[in-house]
């Protein structure tokens, strides 16, 4: 097993550019240090912002004395929350009020009377340098009256301590989804079930930890009135709208730019206090203001992910076929509702039946609670990894209950390939899939039967190195999202994407996209789509993005949406450009435009092969406009806004093989196989990279990562020395298998791939660990499965077994 393992199956033949392993256009600037990340920008005259953050998880603010800090040389201003109150037209935005009666505390960029998590901002300094600004915040004297912290979901639910007095409770909302053919179906299914499973799983909080911390630069034009915000964000477009609303800043004078962005993973899909502070203070001081986040600041001031307690119950008939699923979820919102905090767990609400054929007998409910910890929000997969984890762990519990192989119980429940497109119990239509085929590829790649035989031999009663095999079969609901579906979920925005394709006079092509890449390679992939459509060299295409002046329309990058929504929009714009070009070619070639054919970048007349005109010539005609058809406008440029008719549904199988040392609790991942079917692959090189990275993030949740808080609400894992982002030596190479099932819902047949790896990985790893230890009576190990957690799980189940054997008490 080595890292140079290659893909085993072969991709379907593609005549064109789609499907080629084209090297990335993005790489040369990134490889040479030429790329400009936000904090690399040179901004003459900028003041540096530093934020003083609360050391208490919950406290009343009694006084903020800024006098000593103001007196420091090089300090231009110091402000408390009260000093800034008049700058905010409205509180920080939450765009997803999931229920009409959802409770949300008012949240301002700097606290005014209480602080609600360690890291909550209490005052800011503006100074001539970053160093002075940081020195000065040390001189601000704040008096707090500490209150009790709320650091667990159970404690939050009890309302023992209410985080936000004015709300009277810690419960923000309860959202229900009950789907039954006839009232009482779910309960009847459980009453009649041959097998039932009832499990509780805990999704620990995770710190997203993009390698680039956040950074912001606001550059005003004091006399002209314009404002440019540079931010390390995934969402320049959404940010522009939200800034306009929150600050009352005229949107048409606001430009938001995301320069090179060093990873996001959902944590940069937000509207942050520092973005609003930089703009408001740049405006007030009539000079540029910049801020960059330290890593230990990032761990508390940037949103965290996951944080759920999941109760899942399955009912199955005598054949192991699912008859009902019931889910009760409690999700930790943290101290405030950020941009989409309350909606994140609900993105998983449709996936707790996984890839299985469930009748209309589904009962889901989620309660969001406030705690005194950093707000949670989207983190790679956002709700869907959590859902997949619960159903895939529970399916293994069902297999154990029935004493059948975990693959067997899955196969009995798969939605069959002939059932697609498949209307699920929720009413959502799944586009296309072949679950058994993907499972079969993974099974073969890993040599499943061989491993089971080896396991039977190896895992004898007193063996301390135990082999475990874990599988997960999953859906990734992505391509966010049909705007009408978002409306039905109370989301405040749409899910369309915009694209412009513009042929320049010399036939080079500019593409303007509303997606905002930060590592996903859109410049390369969109160039390939355009080159394939127009029959040109991808090198002749330039992709413009992430600047609201250059690309005014867009909904940005998250939720594996960029290709199935944004990429499809690019393809559609190409089709319309070609249609217009055909009219010009027809005019020039004196033919009917219905007779014009287009292939390999050349327009020709059907049946008259000598009559042809290359795209370059048509482009120049469109530019000079000397001889266009009467009713045709000059230029070859088309803008498209595409609202997807459906989500897309990538799917796949992951299998993980581990060896667990029962004496030390150490887990060694021996092999990891992933078969991710994301439909047509525009560039397999990029697809594979996304899967590799996703798998390692999911595997890291299973084995290494967790935000740990003490009972006073202090984050114990606030640096990269304590929070275990895995290094190369901590993770295995990943073997990929290929399965391609095109999506019938879009013209490219694509589905999206950004989150797949993460969704499939955590349950595969944990199922493997539990599989290794099931003979010892272990049915769950809390994540992360650190040596201590594994060892404790083994020993507590052993001592429970001993107690029972001895007649127990």
């Amino acid at each position: 097993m080595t890292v140079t393992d290659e893909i085993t199956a072969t991709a379907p033949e593609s005549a064109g550019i789609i499907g080629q392993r084209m090297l990335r256009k993005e790489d040369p600037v990134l490889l040479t240090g030429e790329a400009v990340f936000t904090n690399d920008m040179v901004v003459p005259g900028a003041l540096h912002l530093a934020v003083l953050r609360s050391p208490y998880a919950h406290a009343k603010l009694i006084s903020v004395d800024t006098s000593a800090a103001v007196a420091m040389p090089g300090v231009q201003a110091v402000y408390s929350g009260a000093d800034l109150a008049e700058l905010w037209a409205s509180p920080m935005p939450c765009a997803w009020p999931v229920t009409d009666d959802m409770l949300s505390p008012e949240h301002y960029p700097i606290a005014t009377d209480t602080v609600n998590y360690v890291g909550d901002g209490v005052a800011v300094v503006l100074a001539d340098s970053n160093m002075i600004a940081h020195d000065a915040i040390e001189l601000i004297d704040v008096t707090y009256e500490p209150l009790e912290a709320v650091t667990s979901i159970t404690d939050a639910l009890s309302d023992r301590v209410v985080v936000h007095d004015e709300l009277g409770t810690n419960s923000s909302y309860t959202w229900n989804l009950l789907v039954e053919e006839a009232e009482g179906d779910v309960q009847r299914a459980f009453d009649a079930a041959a097998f039932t499973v009832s499990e509780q799983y805990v999704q620990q909080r995770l710190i997203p930890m993009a390698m680039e911390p956040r950074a912001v630069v606001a550059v005003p034009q004091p006399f002209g009135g314009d404002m440019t915000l540079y931010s390390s964000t995934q969402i320049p477009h959404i940010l522009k709208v939200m800034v306009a609303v929150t600050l009352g800043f005229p949107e048409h004078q606001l430009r938001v730019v995301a320069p090179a962005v060093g990873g996001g993973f959902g944590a940069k899909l937000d509207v942050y206090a520092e973005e609003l502070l930089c703009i408001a203070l740049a405006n007030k001081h009539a000079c540029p203001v910049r801020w960059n986040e330290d890593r230990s600041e990032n761990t508390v001031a940037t949103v965290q992910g996951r944080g759920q307690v999941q109760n899942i119950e399955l009912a199955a008939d005598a054949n192991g076929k699912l008859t009902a699923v019931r889910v009760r979820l409690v999700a930790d919102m943290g101290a405030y509702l950020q941009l989409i905090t309350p909606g994140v767990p609900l993105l998983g609400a449709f996936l707790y039946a996984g890839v299985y054929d469930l009748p209309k007998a589904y009962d889901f409910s989620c309660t969001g609670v406030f705690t005194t910890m950093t707000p949670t929000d989207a983190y790679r997969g956002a709700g869907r990894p959590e859902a997949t984890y619960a159903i895939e762990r529970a399916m293994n519990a069902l297999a154990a209950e029935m004493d059948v192989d975990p693959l067997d119980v899955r196969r009995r429940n798969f939605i069959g390939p002939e059932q697609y497109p498949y209307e699920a119990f929720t009413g959502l239509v799944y586009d296309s899939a072949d679950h058994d085929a993907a499972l079969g590829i993974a099974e073969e790649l890993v040599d499943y039967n061989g491993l089971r035989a080896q396991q039977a031999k190896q895992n004898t009663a007193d063996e301390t190195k135990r082999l475990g095999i874990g599988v997960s079969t999953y859906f990734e609901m992505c391509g966010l999202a049909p705007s009408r579906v978002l409306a039905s979920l109370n989301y405040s925005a749409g899910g369309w994407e915009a694209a412009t394709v513009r042929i320049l006079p010399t036939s080079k092509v500019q593409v303007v996209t509303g997606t905002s890449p930060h590592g996903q390679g859109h410049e390369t992939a969109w160039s390939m789509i355009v080159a394939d459509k127009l029959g040109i060299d991808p090198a002749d295409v330039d992709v413009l993005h992430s600047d609201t002046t250059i690309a005014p329309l867009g909904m940005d990058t998250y939720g594996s949406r960029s290709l199935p929504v944004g990429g499809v929009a690019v393809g559609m714009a190409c089709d319309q450009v070609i249609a217009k070009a055909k009219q010009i070619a027809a005019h020039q070639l004196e033919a009917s435009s219905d007779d014009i054919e287009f292939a390999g970048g050349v327009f020709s007349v059907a049946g008259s092969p000598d009559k042809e005109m290359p795209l370059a010539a048509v482009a120049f005609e469109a530019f000079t406009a000397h001889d266009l058809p009467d009713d045709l406008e000059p230029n070859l440029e088309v803008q498209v806004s595409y609202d997807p008719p459906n989500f897309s549904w990538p799917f796949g199988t992951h299998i993980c093989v581990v060896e667990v040392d029962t004496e030390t609790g150490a887990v060694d991942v021996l092999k990891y196989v992933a078969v991710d079917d994301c439909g047509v692959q525009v560039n397999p090189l990029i697809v594979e990279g996304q899967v590799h990275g996703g798998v390692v993030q999911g595997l890291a949740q299973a084995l290494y990562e967790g935000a740990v808080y003490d009972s006073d609400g202090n984050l114990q894992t606030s640096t990269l020395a304590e929070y275990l982002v895995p290094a190369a030596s901590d993770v295995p190479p990943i073997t990929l298998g290929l399965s391609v099932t095109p999506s019938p819902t879009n013209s490219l047949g694509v589905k999206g791939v950004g989150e797949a790896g993460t969704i499939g990985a955590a349950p595969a790893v944990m199922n493997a660990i539990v599989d290794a230890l099931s003979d010892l009576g272990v049915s769950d190990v809390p994540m992360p499965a650190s040596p201590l957690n594994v060892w404790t799980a083994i020993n507590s189940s052993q001592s429970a077994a001993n107690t029972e054997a001895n007649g127990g008490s």
Partner: protein
Amino acid sequence: MEITVTVNGTSHTHDVEPRTLLVHYIREHVGLTGTNIGCDTSSCGACSVHLNGEAVKSCTLLAVQADGQEIRTIEGMADADGTLHPMQQAFMENHGLQCGYCTPGMVMAATSLLEENPQPTEQDVRLGLEGNLCRCTGYHNIVKSVLAAAAND
């Protein structure tokens, strides 16, 4: 305090505060921003540069400690004619980068690793890059890139 440091073959003399870290010196005084900062605990390796030919995390040194020494940063790796360094080329060919934020540090650490061990095994590469974190790639293609660079040498 006045220091003179050779960076990518050019000598620079600056007056710096004694507490200035080498990484801040490189980014803010010399003006080369290819070297990134990813942490405040010397954990991530984003700031890796070569000091007298060997990879160091430039956030672990003070600028004054580099006085009279030779530094090479990511900006000094490719040839002036635009030809990438073989390690940069290998990262490109093997998709060893996504967002690219860890990449300058990875490339500096990886070249230094091959300097010490020209024919590493996969495990040697994984262990050798232990001090450099990447959040995007899952390391698979980074390891592949370094092995490819070693094989091409």
